[in-house]
């Protein structure tokens, strides 16, 4: 205990007397530790943010897409395919997604309109929350009822209030115009949860896509675009299409069933269309996206952290040099201490303590700077700070490990000297 306190006192004194030199020595450690911590913290924060974003876009979602190059019109996904898939085990919802750009006029306004269309499960695959009214039913879908829901933002932009149920708009797409009745207001659920801020263009209460579409609308006409959530059967009737789809979004009951549901759906399509092996249909789920994203970001973070770790090694060599200088400078002191009864281990501990303290101070400063950089970057990019306990452990562990590793050689050299040789040195 005595030795320990004594060693720390000696080390602190030695660092104080050579303050400038000690600071310059620590510089390498400071730069190394701060960059490693900043990189890891920013990397983790970025990953959490992006993964969270992707996850919120549809955790249990499988997207089946049709490869246009390998199919003819008869092999597209039909309504019957969709009802069979909806009836499959572990499938909760399934709806195609259609995206049609047209225009609209109402009693007061006219402008661009975008129809996001599907069957009655569209609400679930898009993650919509009905604010008022009701989502169109399967019966309304099957009977091609010209009804639509609009987002809060659209209601506010064109009517100035959300009391719009029963309002009618003339919707034109593909040269056909129909009167569409508004039956409700629906917004993206994740916008309500406050996670979609990154994509959400404004505080209009609309979802991420609303924000983006609003932004597109700006340069085109100065007006916002009216988004309509509609039955796709109505669009098919208006555009005279075959009534088939090139995509299908499925929501499974559990994350664990994603792969099974995906391949079951794809197999079903191959069997009904008799084109097995053609590669016409592919299923992708969010879990595989997230895994991929996660590993890409991890590799990237590790790579950059590895590069900054090199400066830690360089810093460690700096510490070793300074410790060697310190040993040489204090050879006589080592001789005196040995003459008075200091043992090899005592001398070694003295110099090891000094290099560890040097590295710990450097590590602490580096840690603070690293966190500050990470906090600034996180604030700047609008991502959360992911300060893990492991990051702190890495900083402390790394810097003391460097102190011990690079301190051992000078410390041994000091400790192994014959007292008389050390005493003779001036």
């Amino acid at each position, binding site marked *: 205990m*005595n030795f320990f306190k004594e060693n720390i006192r000696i080390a602190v004194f030695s660092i104080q007397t050579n303050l400038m030199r000690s600071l310059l020595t620590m510089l390498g450690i400071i730069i190394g530790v701060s960059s490693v911590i900043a990189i890891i913290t920013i990397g983790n924060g970025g990953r959490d943010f992006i993964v969270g974003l992707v996850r919120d876009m549809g955790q249990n979602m499988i997207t089946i897409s049709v490869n246009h190059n390998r199919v003819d019109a008869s092999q597209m996904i039909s309504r019957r395919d969709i009802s069979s898939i909806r009836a499959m085990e572990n499938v909760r919802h399934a709806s195609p997604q259609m995206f049609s750009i047209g225009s609209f006029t109402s009693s007061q306004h006219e402008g661009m309109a975008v129809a996001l269309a599907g069957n009655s499960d569209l609400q679930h695959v898009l993650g919509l929350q009905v604010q008022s009214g009701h989502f169109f039913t399967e019966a309304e879908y099957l009977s091609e009822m010209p009804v639509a829901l609009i987002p809060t933002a659209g209601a506010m932009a064109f009517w100035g209030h959300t009391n719009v149920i029963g309002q009618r708009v003339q919707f034109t797409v593909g040269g056909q115009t129909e009167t569409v009745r508004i039956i409700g207001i629906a917004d993206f659920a994740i916008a309500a949860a406050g996670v979609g801020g990154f994509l959400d263009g404004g505080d209009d209460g609309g979802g991420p896509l609303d924000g983006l579409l609003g932004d597109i609308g700006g340069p085109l006409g100065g007006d916002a675009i009216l988004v309509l959530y509609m039955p796709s059967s109505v669009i098919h009737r208006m555009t005279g299409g075959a009534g088939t789809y090139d995509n299908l979004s499925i929501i499974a009951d559990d994350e664990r069933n994603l792969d099974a549901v995906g391949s079951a759906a794809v197999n079903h399509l191959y069997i009904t269309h008799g084109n097995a092996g053609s590669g016409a249909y592919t299923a992708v789920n969010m879990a595989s996206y997230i895994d991929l994203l996660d590993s890409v970001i991890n590799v990237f973070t590790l790579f950059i952290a590895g590069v900054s770790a090199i400066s830690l090694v360089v810093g460690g060599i700096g510490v070793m040099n300074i410790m060697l200088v310190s040993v040489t400078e204090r050879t006589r002191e080592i001789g005196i201490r040995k003459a008075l009864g200091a043992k090899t281990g005592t001398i070694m501990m003295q110099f090891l303590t000094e290099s560890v303290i040097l590295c710990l101070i450097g590590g602490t400063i580096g840690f603070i700077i690293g966190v500050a950089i990470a906090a600034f970057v996180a604030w700047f990019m609008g991502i959360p700070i992911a300060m893990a306990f492991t990051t702190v452990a890495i900083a402390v562990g790394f810097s003391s490990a460097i102190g011990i590793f690079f301190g051992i050689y000078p410390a041994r050299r000091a400790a192994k000297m014959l007292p008389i040789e050390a*005493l003779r040195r001036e």
Partner: protein
Amino acid sequence: MPLIDIRDIYKIYNPGENEVRALDGVSLTIDHGEFVAIVGSSGSGKSTLMNMLGLLDVSTSGQYYLDGHDVSHLSDNEQSDIRNKQIGFIFQGFNLIASLTAQANVELPLIYRGMKKEEREQLSTEALTRVGLENRAHHRPSEMSGGQQQRCAIARAVAARPPVILADEPTGNLDSKTGVHVMAILRELHAEGRTVILITHDDKIAAEAARVIRVQDGKIISDTRKSD
């Protein structure tokens, strides 16, 4: 049984054609409580002899029995232990640690002995008082005169109450008046029953001792005892 018993000690540098025999077969016994002066001119080997006696250096060959124990083949750490417990060193150049106060310097050997703080403080204060430095306890060596520094070094040598005091030219860097003072302290230590071994090139200083051993070319050439 003698306190110190060295037999046929050789210290040879550069063995071979140009070898230098710093110690050339020295045998010597010193009893408990003796006051011995080892005298010789510069290069005679007296300092090498003192380094051997103090276990600061290793001999090329020969045996060293300290208080009946063979200490010549002990490990580095065991020798540190013996230096700490048996021997108090007084060097010509004082060899105080510049960054420590007088009291901290005196406490060093006590720390290495593993003594508790209160005990250390008591012993170091006693030792400083004894050499008349109680008012300088918190001064650093740079704030003290040569004589004060040497007295501080003596306090350090005696604080742990070792049986042997090894003094290498203790007055060499001091003016004559301060030198007299230092010699008086050494006589006092001897009077207390400690074994004092004094290395000097100065016959006048050596005359203070009861036994004078002359060294030349690494050999003992005379060993005389005062018969008073």
